[in-house]
């Protein structure tokens, strides 16, 4: 069971949140100029680290806002919570 520290509401149970997957994926500025391989990589290829994973979460049953989380995928420990648009912190 995760206890996630929402930047606006404080620590809340995981059932209030939904996980939005890998963070920091930037939409290519000119999609029309991409090759099929580059577009496929953008749409489908994902990091799937055993260890620290940077991901997006949404506090859907609370403030409704999105934020980033650095979490260990083995211990499930939440290592850092930071705002959308911020660079991933060293953890």
């Amino acid at each position: 069971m995760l206890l996630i520290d929402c930047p606006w509401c404080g620590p809340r149970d995981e059932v209030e949140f939904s996980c939005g997957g890998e963070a920091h994926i930037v939409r290519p500025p000119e999609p029309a100029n991409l090759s099929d391989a580059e577009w496929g990589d953008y749409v489908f290829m994902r990091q799937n680290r055993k260890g620290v994973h940077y991901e997006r979460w949404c506090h859907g049953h609370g403030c409704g806002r999105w934020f980033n989380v650095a979490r260990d995928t083995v211990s499930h420990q939440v290592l850092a919570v930071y705002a959308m648009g911020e660079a991933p912190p060293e953890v």
Partner: protein
Amino acid sequence: MARYSIFALARNALRRHRDWPLAWRSPEPKAAYDAIIVGGGGHGLATAYYLAKRHGITNVAVLEKGWIGGGNTGRNTTIVRSNYLHDESAGIYDHALKLWEGLSQELNFNVMFSARGVINLAHDEHEARELRRRVFANQLAGVDAEWLTPLQLKEFCPILNVDPGMRYPVLGGALQRRAGTARHDAVAWGYARGADGRGVDIIQNCEVTGFDIRDGQVRGVRTTRGEIAAPKVGVVAAGHSSVLAEMAGLRLPIQSHPLQALVSEPVKPVMPTVVMSNAVHAYMSQSDKGELVIGAGIDSYNSYAQRGSLPVIEETIQAVVELFPITSRLKMMRQWAGIVDVCPDASPIIGLTPVEGLYFNCGWGTGGFKATPGSGHVFAHTIARDEPHAINAPFTLDRFHSGTLVAEHGAAAVAH
């Protein structure tokens, strides 16, 4: 390999069962093999078995970081079926189901395959339409399927609640009669014994820590028990596929999630079939020991922890008690999770990679057990011939660049 039979049983009974030979050896790894299989689950052991039996490649090692069948092979809910939507899926899953039907004889090992039928329930009009579409698609693809009304469902599975007053009423269901369950451990053990008997080395407690890749060609693997050379390496590592792909410099579209299951205390036979429901998310069958085997959903976030969260179990148990009111006072005995490798289109990846001699078989997600024999059969062909079998040709890694996905979320049964 000593053959199991009624006579062997009687002979050994007279010797008080003290002289049964070991079912497989525990050899030290050799310096080099003709082929290495990474992952000693059902799929990996089946691959080694068919490499030896069908393709005559017997100088093979199966490397397993823990013990064989200790990952998802020993953690699933043992359901076997082939009622997927698309022709490509019908091809591979029905190929597997046909192998299941003769597997105990093929392996001389009782895998306890029981064609007790699998029912998929519909709880709303849209789902009923989609399920009937799948029934028709199955029939066109030569896969047995039929549509049952709530009353016919009640007759087939008397403990199922079809009361129209339910929160999510049962509007009907699809039945595949050839589908059913099998003994999960026995599948791993049977393939291990069969492969070992043909000369395959099964090496447990041997974790792969890297690949030896030179000039775009795989030359071997690095392991916790030293370096082992081989011109061909097949990776069948389920939830850890992405970790191994990263070691080889490859990217996969896979995400690893925990998928949970639980079993009740044993009771007398009450459940004659397997019932699955996508909408309320629960599925249940009864093991030969009498335990009700219940499958839950995946946790939405990535994890390698082999344990799931309690809210997922709570949701599943609510659904099970609503669908089968008889279970409301049953005690649950054990709960666990396996790490499943989920692909964006809920179909597997079986084939070649950009590295010569390196093959991946992964992305089976929440439903790999049912495919074990078929997966091993076509993956052995892929490794032996260096090209995919016609059955697994659609399941390339390249489909995520070409766009020819095989979208099976509807038939995969576990919501993700």
